[in-house]
Each structure stands twice: as structure tokens, then as C-alpha cells.
């Protein structure tokens, strides 16, 4: 895997094409960066946060709330992933920081910790099944799961029946990407 993946995010989409990933059965791309936060708070204090970020906060693990401000994804009993624009992100962080004393919580910027791979195509589940042990067919649209891919921690989001997003830690990306790419070519060979 080339070193280029550590270059600023903006240039990556271009690199992608050079790597021949689109020859596979599934369209693979590295998505542009967004602001992401790890939100930790007790459910009893959830309302305060919801007001600050101007979005409902889902309480079922895997559930995702999408609003014009971004997405709020429940990953655990007291853990959420917030996705939004960089500008919105700054505002959210600011308005939440004024809450601290009344609403004990932790909101940590992880925008650079992870990168997101977009996968689109009818064979997307087969592609992911190369490394992900969960039953992906049972995942409903607009649902997220924390899982693993070939031993690497990921967060999966099913956008549509043929469309997934995979969040992976930055340094794990080359490993995950190259395996997906290899398997994608394998799938294409199967279709032929």
C-alpha cells in the first residue's frame, strides 16, 4: 500500500482511482473528511446535549438519527458518534462545553482518528463478509454497528441495501483498504 494515504484527506479521492479500486465489483472510495466526535454521557443527561446539538439522540444501539445538522449514531449504552460539518462541529463543541457542570459528559474530537470508506454495489455484503463476522444481511438501512474487519476495529453504517460506510482508524486503513481491494477484484472475477 502506498504511503500516500497519509496525505491530506482532500487529495485522497484522486489517489483512489490510481489504485484501480473501481475495477472491482463494488465501488470503493475514501470519503472526504467530516467532523466526528465521540460523545459519552449518561442517558439521564441526554436532553441537555440534544438541545446543544439541535438533534434528537437515539437510545437504541445501532440506531441513527439524521438531521440537517448531521448524524447522531448510538454505539453503546452511553456512547454516541456525532458526524457533522467542520463548522457545525466547532459550534457543537463550544455550546456543549458550557454545559459541563450541570450535564457531566465527554465530547472528544476524533475527526482525524478515523477515515471513512464508502462501498457501493450489489455485492457489497459479500465484499464486507471477507473480513466482517457479523450477519450483515440482518443489518437494516440507516443502522450502525461497531464490529471488526480482519481483526481491525471498525464502525459500519448501512446507508442503503447496496451502500455501506466503514469507519476505520487512520493507521489501519492501508490494511483494510488493500484487503477490500483484493477481495473486490476477486468478486469481479467471480461475476465474470
Amino acid at each position: 500500500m502506498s504511503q500516500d494515504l497519509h496525505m491530506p484527506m482532500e487529495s485522497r479521492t484522486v489517489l483512489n482511482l490510481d489504485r484501480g479500486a473501481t475495477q472491482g465489483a463494488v465501488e470503493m472510495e475514501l470519503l472526504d473528511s467530516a467532523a466526528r466526535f465521540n460523545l459519552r454521557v449518561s442517558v439521564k443527561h441526554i436532553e441537555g446535549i440534544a438541545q446543544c446539538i439541535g438533534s434528537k439522540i437515539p437510545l437504541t444501539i445501532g440506531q441513527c438519527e439524521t438531521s440537517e445538522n448531521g448524524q447522531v449514531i448510538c454505539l453503546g449504552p452511553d456512547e454516541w458518534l456525532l458526524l457533522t460539518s467542520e463548522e457545525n462541529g466547532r459550534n457543537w463543541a463550544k455550546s456543549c462545553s458550557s454545559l459541563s457542570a450541570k450535564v457531566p459528559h465527554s465530547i472528544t474530537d476524533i475527526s482525524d482518528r478515523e477515515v471513512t470508506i464508502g462501498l457501493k454495489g450489489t455485492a457489497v455484503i459479500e465484499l464486507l463478509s471477507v473480513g466482517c463476522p457479523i450477519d450483515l444481511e440482518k443489518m437494516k438501512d440507516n443502522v450502525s454497528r461497531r464490529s471488526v474487519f480482519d481483526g481491525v476495529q471498525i464502525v459500519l453504517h448501512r446507508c442503503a441495501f447496496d451502500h455501506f460506510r466503514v469507519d476505520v482508524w487512520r493507521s489501519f486503513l492501508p490494511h483494510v483498504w488493500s484487503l477490500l481491494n483484493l477481495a473486490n477484484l476477486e468478486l469481479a472475477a467471480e461475476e465474470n
Partner: protein
Amino acid sequence: MESFRVSGKGRTDRNDPVKFTFDGKEYKGFRGDTLASALLAHGVHLLGRSFKYHRPRGIVTAGFEEPNALVGTRRSAGRYEPNTRATIQEIYNGLGAESQNRFPSLKFDIGGINDTLSPFLSAGFYYKTFMWPRSFWDKVYEPFIRAAAGLGKAPTEIDPDNYASRYLHCDVLIVGSGPAGLAAALHAGRSGAKIVVVDEHNELGGYILSDPAMAIDGQVSWDWLQAALEELRGLENVKLMSRTTAFGYYHQNFVGLCQKVTDHLDKLPDNAPRERNWRVRAGRVVLAQGAIEKPLVFNGNDRPGIMLAGAAQTYLNRFGVKVGNNIAVVTSHDSAYFAAFDLATSGAKIVAIADTRSNISDVLLAKAKALKIEVLTGQTVCGTTGRLRIKSVKVAKLDNGAANSPRSLSCDTLLMSGGWTPNIHLFSHTKGSLKWDEQSQSFLPDHLTEDCCLCGASLGHWGVSFALESGALAGNRAASEMGFTTENIVFNVENDRVGSGESVLDLPSNISAQKTKSFVDFQNDVTSKDIRLAVREGMRSIEHVKRYTTNGMATDQGKLSNVNGLQIAADALDKEPPQVGLTTFRPPYSPTTFGMFAGYQRAAGFELTRKTPIHSWAAEQGAVFEPVSQWMRAWYFPKSGEGMHDAVKRECRETRKSLGIFDASTLGKIEVVGPDAVEFMNRMYTNPWTKLAPGRCRYGLLLGEDGFIRDDGVIGRLADDKFHVTTTTGGASRVLNMMEDYLQTEWTELQVWLTSTTEQWATIAINGPNARNLIEPFVNGLDVSNDLFPHMSVAECKFAGLPCRLFRLSFTGELGFELNVPARYGRMVWEELLEAGKKYDICPYGTETMHVLRAEKGYIIVGQDTDGTVTPDDAGLSWAIGKKKPDFVGKRSLARPDIVSPHRKQLVGLLTDDPNYVVEEGAQIVADPDQPTPMKMLGHVTSSYWSEALGRSIALALVLEGRDRMGETLFIPMPDGVIPVAVTDSIFYDPAGDRLNP
């Protein structure tokens, strides 16, 4: 010339001829043939030599259980496989096969001398012979045994193929696609359940493929099969997989499948893997694995041309190949009659059927009579003749256990059947219990440990009607247990060849038992004589008999030999078989390639390797890297002509002189946030945190409950309720897990949350007298002067316009800063700093220089200077313990008598008498080098380097009562001499710390 191909018979494609070679000779077969069926069509039975006695051997079976017909196959360079089963390998254009275990040729093999020597090579031969003299073992016996061992040659080239893997989830997994599996599939499939059907053969259908004379529901069996498969293929919820072996059944219905993807193709498609490992998680598993025919154990039962009757039926009906022209049959079971009848009607002459039983059904006798086949009852087999192919078999009437008036039958082929053994291998993997069934003389499944059920012949009942019926039940049960509505279908079978038989031991001969060779395990050359000998020599359990004789220990895992071996051992012991026991079958079910198990974990994908955002820059500069836990870190940056030592010397010199820059991004980082953050830190780390003001940082020490050092790092307090914790590179995930463990199980009342930020930040360490001069112009919103931003400070600011967490700290003893910027900008900031640092002769340095610089200051590295048995006091870090704190992880252990004992190893410095000698890390230290061995070791060297700053070597060591030995001379015995060393303080450079605050 395919003289044994029967026109109008079989399922191979006569319009698609295929050419292949065997031992260099070209042969022709048809698409759909296995190597075995194609060779049999040419009358070739001899395929290899046996393992121990090098006896000529031929094809015995038509399936996965084949013990003899193992060949080497080659497709192209690198694609050589030893021990391929000729009965499974499909032929393709260009396939090259060769026989194994013979020299110089298959027909004349020098190793055959072992056969003549066989009276001296009995069971336990190796154990008895190679015992003494002891000194012969290493040089003579072991090399000899190793050279003689193994069938085939291990490949020497790198395997160019890819191996793939996938996870698969289904409601019902059905293993086996014979009548039982198909009935289960039809029932479960129609219910709408998601089902997967696997079969190891290239075609689905199992036994049905071998019996076209049968009719199911008024249809010829093959028409019925085609309709059933078409229906299943039309169902979206059904996945049919041929050439796929369920090799292992693991916990909670996790079943491993090996799918052969390309081994049958003329041309390899681009990007296709050779094999794919499917990791299936099934709601229910239906095991429809059928039964394996049991050979008869008689004198000379291993000659080429002797095969199982069922296999002959398969070769005839499925492949259109008649296995011989003059065929004799010996049997203790009805099923051999059916094979004989099919062959007789296809033009082969059945010399006779010799049956061990006296009472045979009238129906069979009448049919035999109609086909003019002589049936001999109450028979035994005395022996056979023929070296490379059977020529005759001698049968005799068995009278009170004695073989009377033997009669020789000329033949070119001998079919045998000792009945059938239910295939319970996968069931056995689940550790489900077995019970001995007296009637069928076999082990049958008893208590289930997994959500599975068995059906068909694996239950010990024969016939297609039973298979369909039990398969239907199994399919319905599995689907309905998974919540689907099912409907029962009743099948009607005509011409069902149910059959029955008796179970027999090794057949008596008219010659002395000591002179017979009645093989139980063909592949490992184990005879019934060997098994009886093992019992005479004291083996009581089948586990011992197995290991003493190697019965069942070959690549076929005793598929043919286990039950015969057990029954003979039980007879010799005069016990019932279950009292002697059955060995456990373990995965894999049949030989499976290493490639499949390795899967994607090869070459670049072999192991996950993590790289920092600055890695690409270091690589471009020609840095040499070293692995540190999962990461690759720049070790040193050699300039042209420099070796490691010169590069490290230069990096050390330039950093201390002016300015060094270091990529510290791999350090673990944990954000600890919440109103109880400080309480959490107090409990976790040894140090006191309450009075640490926001904007300050402190060295933190983490212990295990045992009081030993686990991790360390500098921790900054960013706000009353927020800490930025750093950990060692290798400790990052371990420390976070340990913290979460305490938080979630011990201290659930604390309102504090942990988030890994290791990869959020790129971390750049700037060290040297010019460190501040370099960074100052980049910093916005913070005064970094010595007064306002003193040593051990932390602040959030802007750096080059980017959000930054700036630490003032030092792991070198020089003025130092560590800046954390969002990871995506790491390389950009790094390069800007290098550009700006040119005027200070900025020097990028690697982990080796970092190690030297810290050792000069006596700073420890957890995992190098500690080994899991070092306390804070041992390491000279008592100052890092909050003495007034009520508790912290490990506090109680620090009061244990052995921990407070003064007689512990302590970290000290060592200076060699010869300043140019750098001692070896790990070297042992003694007080008196002249003492007799074994010497009393006082400790060992943990770190050792050339110190450029001091112009001499330095070392750190853990030494018994080390701090009381200051100034003492100790000794390091090395192969090239004894090295005297003086014990010193562990801080070698700038002990007053003046350089931290220039």
C-alpha cells in the same frame, strides 16, 4: 485407448475430451472424470507405493476416504501439490500427475525391499529398535527416520496462488447432498429459511449419482435429482456449493468450509483464489454425510485391483468406467451384490461372489442366478496373487473357524465389502457423545452438544427411502426450530437397494497367521497382526494401540481403518468395542491446504502494520525502520555512507548541540474526561493528581495489582475535568482496556469517560537548546517563554494556524516540546518545521537516538528496563508514588514482604573499565567471575549504548541490592572474556538537570 469405458454409461461429458499425463505418459479422459476414473478407463489401477513397505497400491475408493491413490499433481511452476487424492482431483487439460514414494519407477521400486523385511518391521519397530545406544539418536536414527518418513515430497517453491475467505450466515447448513441432504434441503428450502448445502464432490447428488436404476416418485433417479436441484437453484434462499468440504465443526454452530475454486479448470481466471475458506455461522446444522464402506481384512487385501464394491458401482454408473473384465467379489454385506449385478449387465464377467455369510436373501440369489453369477457362501479369503495387479484370489469354505479346501479364482479385479461405517466425523468434532450399536457394529451419534441433527446413512440405517425420510424430518425440524413453517413431503422409492450384512473380523486363512499380510490401515501399512501384537505387548486402550501401530494416523485419519482396527483390538482383548474405546476425530475432516488456513494473511497482508502520518516522509529520506508493537517506526536516518552507529552518533550529537526532531505519533493517547476525572487518575496511577493544576503535566506511573510497573507516560491536565494521558507505544490498547475494566467493573460510580485519541494527533517532539527558538514563531495564543511556559507545562494553542496541544517536557534531558496537531496535518507541519529549522541545523532522529538520549539521563523504558517484576522502588521511582493517597492500583502489593525487602534487584548504572566496550543487553552480571559454575547471577544488563555525549559506553542494569553497591566492581562473563564494570548512579548526563531550563 479407453478400453474400460462403457458406452452409454456415466455422467462425464463425452463431447469434451481432456488430456492429462500420469508419470509422463499422456492419457485422455472426459470432463467430469476424476484422475482415478480416467486412469481406470485405461485399465490403470497401480497408482502408488505404500508408505512403509513400498507395496504396489491401487485405487480403493471413489471418494475422500481414499488411502492409497495419492499422487503428486502439478499445474505449472509453483503449483505442485503432494498427496492429492486421485479419487477427488478432477482432470483438466494440462494436469500433470505423478506417483509417489517410489524409486526409480512405480513398477520397480528399490524401497520394496522393506516388504521382504517386513517380519522385522512389526508394530513398535521404531520404539524397540532405535532405543540404544543413546548417542546414535541425533546423528543416525533421527536423520534416518526423517528421511524415510512422509509420503510425497513437500513443495519447495513459493505458492503463487491466492487463498480467500468469507463469513457466511444461514438458518440451516446442510452437509452432504445425497438423498438425505437433498430431502433436508427441499424441506428447509421450501420453508423460506436461508439454507446452504455443501458437498465435497464436483456434482451434487451423492449416492444418487451411483444408482441410476432406482426411481424416486416415479422418476428415474437422475431425472428426479435434476428436478430437485433445479428447484433448489431457483430458490433465492438456497445456496448450493459443490467441491466444498466441511472440514471442521466448531463451537456454537461455527463450521469451516473449504471450497476448491480453480483446481478443476483448464485455465486459471485472473484474480480468482485457488480455494476459499467459508466461516459459516449456522442456526441449525444438518449432517447428512452418509456412510463409508468398510474394507474386509484378509491376507493380501492390498494389491492393485482390489477395491471397495461401492466404489466400483460408482465408477461404472457415474463415470462410465468398468473397473475390470474378470471380477471376483468378496463380501459380508448385500451391497456388493448390487455392484456385481450392475457390472455383469455392463459386460464384465463376475467370476464369483464369495460371501462370509451362510444365509443370503433369496432375492439376491435369484438375481445372481439369472445373471449366471456363482455365489459361494460361508467363505473366507486365504490369500491373493499378483504383484502389480491382482491375478487371483483364493477362497475357502469356513468350517469351525478353519479354511477348508481353498479354491483359486482367476480375476483382474477383486471387489470387497465389509459393510458400512456411518460417517460421524463432524459430529465427533462437536464432542457429542457416541454409543456403540451392537446390531450395525458401529458407533452412532448419541447425545448432541450443538444445534445439529443427523440423517440418512450416518444414523446407521441403509437405503435411499430411509435417507429421504430422515432427511425430510431433519430439514423440517431445523427450519421450524428457526421459526419457519414447514410441510412434509413423502417420497416413494422403487428399486431401493437397502441391504444388510454382518460385521466380520480379520478373515482366517489356511496359512499361519504369522505369515499373512492382512491390511487394516492401507496408508500406514498396519496389519491385523500388528494390532494383535500391540495387544500382546500390553496395549489396552485403542488410543495406545493406535499410537503403537500408527493405525488410523495417516492422512485419511482412519476413515477405512478405525472400526476394523477397533474390532480386532477388542477381539484380542476379549472385550466389547466400546470398552476399548474409539479415538476422537478432530478437524480437519480431510487433508486441507495450509494456504486455505493462511488465507489473506500472506505477503503484504501477512500482518497488520501501522504507520504514522509522518512515515511517508521518513521513507522518502531513506530512514531505516524498526517494528515497535504493531507500528513501523523510523529507527535512524542514515546519510550517504553512514552505518547505524555513525548515524546515531550524529543524531545524538546534533540534538544535544542544537536541535533534533522526532516523530512520537505512536505514543498512546487517552482522553480522560468527566467530573470524576481527577479521582479516577488518583486511583489508576501511583502519582497524586489532585493538586496538579490545569496547564501542568506530570510523569505518571501505572502498576498492576501486583505492584509491578505496567506502563508510564507524561500526563497533562487540560482542565479540572480533562486529562490528556500518554502511554507507551506498545501499551496503548492494553492501558485503555485496563482502565475501562476498572471503570466498568470496580468503579461504576465514577462519572468519567475514556476515549482513545492515539490516532487523532500527530505528535512531534522537538528537543535541543534551540527548541524554543524553532517553535516560537509558529505558536499563536500562547507565550512559550521559560517563565510563562515552564518545564512540565501543557496548553492548547494554535500552531501554524492549526489546533494544537503543546507540551513542554523532555525525554532527552534537553529543552523539549511535544506538539500534537490533527493527524492529517502531521506531515505538513513536520516539513514546515524542518524548513524553519534549517538555520539551527535541525536533525531528524529515530528511535535508537531517542533510546540513547534517554538512557544518558537514566529515564527508563517500560518493557526494556522493566520486565513485569520491577516495582517503582526497584526502578528508583519511589518519588512518583503519592504517599498520602488512600489507594491506587497496586498500592496494597507495595507493602508485601517480598516487595519491601531490601534484597531486591534495583536499577543502577554500569560503566565498563574499558570505555570503548559496549556490553551486550541481556548479559548476566556476577560478583566473582572465578566462582564455580553455575554462578550466582546478580542481575542483567537492560540497556547498553555508546554515549556520544560522554564519549564512552554506558549501561543500565537490574542488580541485586544494586543501590548498596555504588562504586563496586562487578563482572560480566562473556564468551570472549570477562568484562569488569563499575556500579554507578543511573543518571549519566547532566544530573543537575540544568539543560532542561536553559
